[in-house]
């Protein structure tokens, strides 16, 4: 085991006792194969069982353990201690209200995911016995990267637009809308446009690109939003030139 130790400065907030959050420091060992989540688990198991945080899979799949690590939104299960300095500042995901310690209130994010109708809207509903909706590999490739989102909300914590205007639908929800809009089996684009193409949707994004830089799954929400802007603009001009057109 490595001799190195690191100091975690963890933001603590107890809504029943604290008026505002404060930092609390813990010294933890730093084995070569430990990630930040291992160090937080060490604190919870050995040093301070009052610490609250979310985690589940420890393998960058569940999206639960997102937090600010030295000011950068990261999955704590994917951030190795060996790549971090001796003092690591850990805070709850930025831009979200703090529920307790490192736990944030995700209700706004969940609500926005639901608002973009994140499910297939087929032209004709088929009974299960009629078989599946077919799709070619090329049609799948058009949107596959946008299916990889794990809803970790790191992109929201990185987005300055969401920080300044909490009404913004935000990167992950808009990327998910683009995922379904780009699906050859889906006809829900018009139904999603009320939310997606509104002032609080794609047009609130000014392409900072921070969402794509921090995404642990390389979903690239910034790309999805820019592509939706182009599609929406084409729709606008088609409506202008061909009033009454369908689709």
């Amino acid at each position: 085991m490595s001799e190195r130790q690191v100091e975690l400065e963890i933001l603590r907030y107890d809504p029943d006792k604290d008026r505002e959050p404060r930092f609390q420091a813990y010294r933890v060992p730093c084995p070569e194969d430990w990630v930040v989540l291992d160090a937080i688990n060490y604190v919870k198991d050995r040093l301070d069982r009052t610490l609250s945080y979310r985690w589940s899979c420890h393998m960058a799949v569940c999206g639960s353990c997102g937090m600010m690590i030295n000011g950068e939104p990261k999955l704590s299960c994917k951030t190795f201690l060996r790549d971090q300095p001796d003092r690591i500042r850990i805070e709850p995901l930025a831009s979200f209200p703090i529920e307790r310690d490192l736990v944030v209130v995700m209700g706004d994010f969940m609500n926005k995911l639901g608002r973009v109708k994140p499910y297939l809207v087929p032209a004709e509903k088929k009974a299960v016995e009629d078989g599946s909706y077919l799709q070619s590999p090329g049609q799948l490739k058009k949107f596959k990267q946008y299916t990889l989102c794990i809803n970790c909300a790191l992109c929201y914590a990185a987005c300055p637009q969401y920080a300044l205007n909490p009404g913004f639908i935000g990167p992950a929800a808009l990327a998910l809308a683009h995922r379904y809009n780009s699906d050859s089996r889906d006809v829900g684009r018009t139904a999603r446009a009320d939310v997606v193409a509104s002032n609080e949707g794609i047009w609130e994004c000014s392409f900072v690109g921070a969402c794509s830089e921090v995404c642990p799954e390389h979903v690239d929400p910034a790309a999805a939003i820019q592509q939706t802007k182009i599609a929406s603009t084409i729709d606008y001009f088609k409506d202008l030139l061909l009033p009454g057109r369908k689709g």
Partner: protein
Amino acid sequence: MSAKPYIRPRSTTGWWLEQSRYVRYMAREASCIFIGAYAGILAVGLLRLSQGAEAWAGFLEALQSSASIVFHLLALVFALYHTTTWFNVTPKAMPLQIGDARLPGEAIIAAHYAGWALVSAALLYLAGV
């Protein structure tokens, strides 16, 4: 949800200084000010040209002032930054898929640079350089 979730204050003016990626973004956005000003100067030049030889000569003389030269150097730097940063993100906004294969982003970026070179060469040719 707890009865008292804590909402962290956020600066509405200094936020862009918090991370280097935000500073790069603001630099890209600010570059349009120089490009807009340069376009304004070109428009004034056209106006002066339409007003006769004397007006045009005065415009050319003003361009040679040290303030004008400093501005044009700055505008050139910002125009290059503006152009390269936008060209580099074009594969995000305009990905191309041919059949089952995605065209590499580098090819889309290279096509923009090629177009830039072509238009520049055409302009230089028309200007008689």
